[in-house]
C-alpha cells in the first residue's frame, strides 16, 4: 500500500468514527430485505406480500423501545428463476442487509437457495410451497413460515375422492412448482385409490393457447381437471375450458388462491376448488389485528393469500435482530431455536431443515365471486352442486 492510500485509509476511517460518534444518540439503521414477484402475472401476490412486510417494518419503527431503526429493501424476482438469482445475489452481497423475507414463486425460491447459502444470508421464505426448498439441502440459512405442497395435495386428493369423483385429468406447468404439484397430487390420489388419473399434460408457464390440450382432455371426459400452476394460466385454462364446452370440476392449488383469479374470470370462477396451507387470514390468531394494521396504511391492493405469512416472516427477522443484533451469523443461530413461537399465523416451529411444521390446510371453493372455506360453503351443505357432485 502506498503512503498516500494509507493516509487516505486512515483519514476515511477517522471520518467514519467521527460520523458514528455524531449519530450516537440516533438509532442505528438496519436494513432487512423483501423479495417477491412485483411485476408479471402473479404480481398481485408479490405486492400484497411486500405491503405486509412493509406493515411489519413500519409498526416496529413506530415502537420507541426498539434498538434499531429498520429499513426495508425491496427487490423484484418477476417469478422467474434467472431474475431471482440475480436479485438474490444483489441482496445477499450487500453486507448492510441482514436478513430477508423471500419469494412467493417456488421456481424462483428453489433457484436461489444455493445463493443464500453461499453468502451466509439468512432468509425466511414467505410463500413458495415446493418441499425441496427446505428439504433438498440442509442449509442453516433457509427457513420457511408457510407449509409445503405435500400437505395441500393430500387434502386435495382426499376431498376429490370423498366427493365420489372417479376420473381426473392433470394439467401442470413444467416448472419445479408445477411438476411438484403433479407428483404429490398423483401420489396422494393413488394412495387413496378411489379415483384414477386419465391423462397428464405438462404445459409451459407462459403458454397462451390450451385448446389442443383441452380438446384432448374433452375426449377423455374426466370428472375433474386438476391444475398445478399459478393464476395467469389458471385463468386462461378455465376460460378456454368454457369455450370448448368442458363441464368438469376445476380443481386448483394454492397457486390460484388470489383475488386476481376471481376477477380475471368473473362468473366462470364459480365452483373452482383450491387448497392452501394455514387458515384464512381472518381466521388466524392475529388475523384481525393484521388486517386492521394493513388497512390503516391504505395500500391500493389487498394482502392476498400469503400476506400474513410475509408479515410473520418479517416480524420474525426483526425479533431476531432486536435480540442478537444486526449480524447474519447470530441471526441464523437465533432462528435455529424457534419453537412454538407465537405469530399471527399461529405457533411457528422450525424443524431441523428450517421448515415450519404447520399441519392446517384450508379447503376453498369459489362461491359468488369469493374464495369461501369449503366446510362453510353451500356446496358442502348440498345447497349448490359442483358438476357431477353426488
Amino acid at each position, binding site marked *: 500500500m502506498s503512503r498516500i492510500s494509507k493516509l487516505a485509509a486512515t483519514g476515511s476511517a477517522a471520518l467514519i468514527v467521527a460520523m458514528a460518534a455524531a449519530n450516537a444518540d440516533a438509532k442505528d439503521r438496519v436494513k432487512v430485505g423483501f423479495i417477491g414477484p412485483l*411485476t408479471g402475472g402473479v404480481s398481485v401476490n408479490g405486492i400484497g406480500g411486500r405491503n405486509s412486510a412493509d406493515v411489519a417494518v413500519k409498526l416496529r419503527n413506530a415502537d420507541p423501545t426498539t434498538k434499531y431503526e429498520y429499513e426495508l429493501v425491496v427487490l423484484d424476482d418477476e417469478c422467474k428463476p434467472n431474475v431471482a438469482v440475480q436479485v438474490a445475489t444483489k441482496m445477499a452481497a450487500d453486507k448492510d442487509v441482514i436478513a430477508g423475507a423471500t419469494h412467493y414463486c417456488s421456481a424462483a425460491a428453489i433457484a436461489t437457495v444455493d445463493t443464500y447459502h453461499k453468502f451466509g444470508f439468512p432468509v425466511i421464505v414467505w410463500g413458495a410451497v415446493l418441499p425441496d426448498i427446505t428439504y433438498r439441502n440442509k442449509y442453516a440459512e433457509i427457513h420457511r413460515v408457510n407449509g409445503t405442497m405435500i400437505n395441500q395435495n393430500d387434502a386435495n386428493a382426499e376431498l376429490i375422492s370423498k366427493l365420489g369423483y372417479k376420473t381426473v385429468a392433470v394439467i401442470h406447468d*413444467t416448472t419445479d412448482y408445477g411438476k411438484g404439484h403433479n407428483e404429490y397430487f398423483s401420489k396422494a390420489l393413488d394412495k387413496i385409490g378411489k379415483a384414477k388419473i386419465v391423462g397428464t399434460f405438462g404445459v409451459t408457464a407462459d403458454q397462451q*393457447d390450451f385448446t*389442443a*390440450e383441452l*380438446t384432448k382432455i374433452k375426449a377423455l371426459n374426466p370428472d375433474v381437471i386438476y391444475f398445478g400452476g399459478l393464476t395467469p394460466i389458471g*385463468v*386462461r385454462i378455465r376460460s378456454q375450458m368454457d369455450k370448448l364446452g368442458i363441464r368438469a370440476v376445476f380443481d386448483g392449488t394454492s397457486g390460484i388462491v388470489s383475488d386476481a383469479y376471481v376477477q*380475471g374470470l368473473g362468473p366462470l370462477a364459480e365452483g373452482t376448488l383450491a387448497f392452501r396451507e394455514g387458515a384464512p387470514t381472518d381466521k388466524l390468531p392475529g388475523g384481525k389485528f393484521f388486517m386492521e394494521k394493513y388497512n390503516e396504511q391504505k395500500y391500493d391492493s389487498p394482502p392476498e393469500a400469503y400476506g400474513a405469512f410475509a408479515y410473520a416472516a418479517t416480524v420474525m427477522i426483526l425479533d431476531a435482530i432486536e435480540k442478537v443484533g444486526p449480524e447474519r451469523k447470530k441471526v441464523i443461530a437465533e432462528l435455529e431455536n424457534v419453537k412454538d413461537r407465537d405469530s399471527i399465523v399461529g405457533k411457528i416451529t422450525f424443524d431441523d431443515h428450517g421448515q415450519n411444521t404447520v399441519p392446517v390446510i384450508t379447503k376453498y371453493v369459489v362461491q359468488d365471486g369469493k374464495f369461501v372455506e369449503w366446510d362453510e360453503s353451500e356446496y358442502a351443505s348440498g345447497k349448490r352442486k359442483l358438476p357431477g357432485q353426488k
Partner: protein
Amino acid sequence: MDTGLLAQYVMNGLMLGMMYALVAVGFTLFFGVLDVIKFSHGDVLTVGAFTALATYVGFSSLGLQSNWLALLAMLVLATLSMAFLGMVIARYLVMPLRSAPPLNTLLITLMLGTVLRETVRLFYPQGANPKPFPPLLPRSSVDIGTFNLRLDNVLMLSAGMLVIVGLQYLLNRTRLGLAIRAVAQDEETARTMGINFTAVVLVTFAIGSGLAAFAGVMNGLYYNEINFGIGLYLGVVGFSAAIIGGLGSIYGAILGGFLFAGLQIIGTVLLPFASAYKDVFAFAAVIAIMAWRPTGLIREKISERV
C-alpha cells in the same frame, strides 16, 4: 377419434392458423418490397392490441354501451394507428438503412421490438400484468355431438378470411397492388416505369402493420386476455410461417401460418409424450421443411435464399 372431436381440433387449428397467417403475411409483404426482415412486427401487434384495449377503456368511460360500436372503434383506431406506426418505422428506420448490410436492418428492428414491448410494459397502466380483454362478440354456442361451435369463433374466422380475400384483391386487381408487385419483382425497373418507390414501400408497411393490429385485436377477443409479451411469440411463429411458406409469397405465408398451427395441434394430439413439447415438435418440423426446401413451399418467382 370421433368426428366431433376432430371438428374441434380443426376449429382450434383454424383459429390459431388465422392469427399466425395474418402475422406471416406482414413479414412476407415487407420482404417482398424491400428484401428486409422486420423483427419488430410482432411487437407492433402487441401495441395494436393495447391500443384497442385503451380505446375500449376510453369508449366505456364515455358511457357508451354498444359492443359493436366499441369493437368498430377499436378496430379502426388500432389498425389506423398501427398503419401509421408501420409507415414511421419504414420511413425513419428501415429505408435509411437500405444500402447498409441487411443484418443492420434486422438488428435495428429487433431492438425496436424490445423498445415497443418494454414501452407497453412500463407505460401502459400496470402494463406488466396480463390485462383482461373484453368479450365483445356474442358468446352463444351450439353443441354438435362433442363439437362445441361458438358464434364468436365463426365471426372471427370469417372476418379473417374477408381480410385475406380483400388483401388478395388489393394485390392482384388494383393499380396499387400492381405497383407493389412491380416493386417486389424488380425495384429499378419499377422506378423507370414511373412508380413512386417510397410511396409504395410506405403503403406496404402500413398494410402489413394494420394486419398485425387486426391480428392483435383478434388475439384479444379469442383469449379474452392480452399481455405485453404476446407479440414476441406470435412474431417468431409468424416469421417461421412466412419462411416455410416461402418468404415473399402471400399464399406461402397463409399456407405457412395454417401449417404451423396444424403442426402444433398434431404435436399435442398424436405424440405420446407430454404436450409441453409441442413447440419443440413444431419448430423441429420447420427446420426439416427448411432443409428440404430452403426457399419455402411456394417459391417466389425470382427467389432468394434465406
